[in-house]
């Protein structure tokens, strides 16, 4: 906050005086006693230094023009006065703030959209509308329900026609803090419209099947990660008889609901909710899948761990199609690794990562959707949930190769 105030003041000065701050640094000086403080203040009297003191009491903040940097540093070193560089290049910071303020304004179209950055919920929703507007024959948007706090739950449908064609479902952002997933969802959407007609695999798929993409399954949670707590996971349900908020949307499905691998304590991250499908974010997908009736592959995307998982999570009993699911998973992770060498493990949820009950793909699998998979995207823990934005596009691109393997197999193995 302090830094923002300080920068705003600098911006004001810059705008008013049209000064140039290239190479200027802002030091925060921490004098250890009055003697050192007096020594610092001596510098103000040396007019040639052109120092601009922003704060006069300890810690002392001062803007140092580039021509004075060496002198000031030597002076402080000579007197063993501690300081650190608060702003390394004031002009760069001002330019960046200006750029950020500009980019807070929405992109005009999906070609000027910044795929290499994380976006707010409203920016993602704007993107969806732009994509539909630019590709009306291929893309349409349906609101399948509303979140706890009343936000629309948007699903994009990619279709080249037909009537209730067999379909593939992809969802991202069921857990709010897994930002690389929502960001990848945006990239997938753009790839579909770009590659239809140019990529033979994707074109063949879309000529005979539909693709449904829900980019933000948990919009309330996602919003909360921007405004309050970057590490929020659950939805924003006000739990009855508890001051703790939120239900884990991937423990709320009716598959082993309430069993081991979920929690009945609302104050925990894996709280499963009062009953299966109690949460509107989950219920709306359940209703959609049931009424559609022709979904043949269901893929839920999470982060992190670098894994491709198939049912079950709630029981050690192997899925009856385990051999086939395992084979397809192997092919998919090989395709994924072909791009950047990113290594994925694969297997059933319960053996590979942990026991978890009430998960989405266990429910969809039990409902007869054979190709039910969960991805855990990059990385393996070094950055974890806070994956640098410059890894969004590489992650999405490698994941897309794996998705195409699954979609292609679904297309070629109708059931």
């Amino acid at each position: 906050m302090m830094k923002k105030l300080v920068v705003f003041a600098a911006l004001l000065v810059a705008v008013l005086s049209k000064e140039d701050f290239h190479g200027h640094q802002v030091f925060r000086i921490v004098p250890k006693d009055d003697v050192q403080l007096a020594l610092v203040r001596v510098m103000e009297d040396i007019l040639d230094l052109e120092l601009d003191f922003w704060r006069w009491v300890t810690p002392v903040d001062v803007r140092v023009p580039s021509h004075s940097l060496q002198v000031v540093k030597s002076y402080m070193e000579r007197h063993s006065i501690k300081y650190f560089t608060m702003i390394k290049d004031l002009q760069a910071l001002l330019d960046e703030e200006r750029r950020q303020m500009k980019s807070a304004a929405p992109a005009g179209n999906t070609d000027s959209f910044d795929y290499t950055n994380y976006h707010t919920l409203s920016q993602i929703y704007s993107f969806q509308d732009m994509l539909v507007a630019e590709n009306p024959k291929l893309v349409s948007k349906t609101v399948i329900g509303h979140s706890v706090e009343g936000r629309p739950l948007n699903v994009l449908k990619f279709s080249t026609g037909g009537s209730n064609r067999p379909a593939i479902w992809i969802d991202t952002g069921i857990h709010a803090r897994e930002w690389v997933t929502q960001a990848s969802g945006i990239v997938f959407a753009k790839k579909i419209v770009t590659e239809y007609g140019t990529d033979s695999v994707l074109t063949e798929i879309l000529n005979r099947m539909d693709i449904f993409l829900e980019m933000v399954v948990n919009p309330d949670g996602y919003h909360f990660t921007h405004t309050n707590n970057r590490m929020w996971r659950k939805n924003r349900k006000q739990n009855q008889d508890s001051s703790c908020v939120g239900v884990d949307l991937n423990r709320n499905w009716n598959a082993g609901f309430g069993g081991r691998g979920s929690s009945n304590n609302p104050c925990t991250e894996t709280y499963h909710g009062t009953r299966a499908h109690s949460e509107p974010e989950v219920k709306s997908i359940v209703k959609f899948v049931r009424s559609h009736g022709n979904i043949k592959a269901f893929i839920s995307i999470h982060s992190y761990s670098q894994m491709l998982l198939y049912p079950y999570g709630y029981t050690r009993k192997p899925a009856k199609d385990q051999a086939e699911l395992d084979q397809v998973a192997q092919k998919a992770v090989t395709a994924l690794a072909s791009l950047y060498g990113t290594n994925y493990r694969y297997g059933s949820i319960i053996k590979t990562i942990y026991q978890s009950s009430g998960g989405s793909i266990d429910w969809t699998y039990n409902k007869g959707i054979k190709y039910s998979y969960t991805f855990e995207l990059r990385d393996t823990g070094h950055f974890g949930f806070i994956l640098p934005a410059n890894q969004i596009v590489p992650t999405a691109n490698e994941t897309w190769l794996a998705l195409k393997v699954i979609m292609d197999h679904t297309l070629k193995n109708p059931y």
Partner: protein
Amino acid sequence: MGLRRAIVLFALMEVTWSLSVTTIGPKTVSTDASAHPEPAEENTEQKEAAEEDVMATGELNPNHYPAQRAAKVVQHYLNLRHGSPYKLFGLKEVHSGNAEEVADSGRKYQLEISVHEIISNTKEKCSAEVFFPSGAKQLSPQVQVSSCEEILKLDAKSEEEALYQQYKTNKTVRTEKRLPDSYGHIDPEMTPFWHLSIVASSFIMLKESTENTLYNMAQVANITQLATENDQLKFDCHVLLHDMVSQEIPQWKLLFTWSPAEGVKVLHTEQLPHVHESEKQAKPN
């Protein structure tokens, strides 16, 4: 009590629990009138759950979680012992693993893993042994590593010395932002301190690890340099950890020292209370 008795007792509890689920189930439906209670599916699965508590023993599948969790503990051990602002270890792969009971005192894993030093991007195969003691009082796991010498000998001495000198005499560190920030960005000048926080966090992550946890450091909330009378640099940091198994974000304050010669020494740790988002919320990040 013996492990076998514990399993039997647990199995009994599981059966009792599953019975209570089938009888109590419908009554726990919320009072929402429009809801149709979902039929309780497959409650017979609960009985099978008893077997899932028997720990994997013998030859382990290196891609499954038991070997992976034990291997992660080795990563924390290596970072605590050998990590620095310019040296950080990651678990690259588990090649093979073996687990065995050690007569009423715990369980021992033998692992062949690949470790990589993240900053220099070098990889090496290592052998390691991880012992998880059993018992009511939670004791930390014990780790032994062998045939890993090359990667541990990697030299970052000149960078470490330069950083040490800078912050011993002139500069001082106090974070304005979280490391990394929400977008994964870290100011290059702060990166060595992010690394140091990971090393210090490894002390906690090692200590708290069990066969039912998998820790990573999620974010540094803040780090401040404190004055010292001796030749160590001293820091106070607040870190957010992530346990993959429970999905919780435990928060810890750590007081630690560092110098190129001594490495990281943790002086004091304090776990912060679990603030679960009711309406009073800590300052936004």
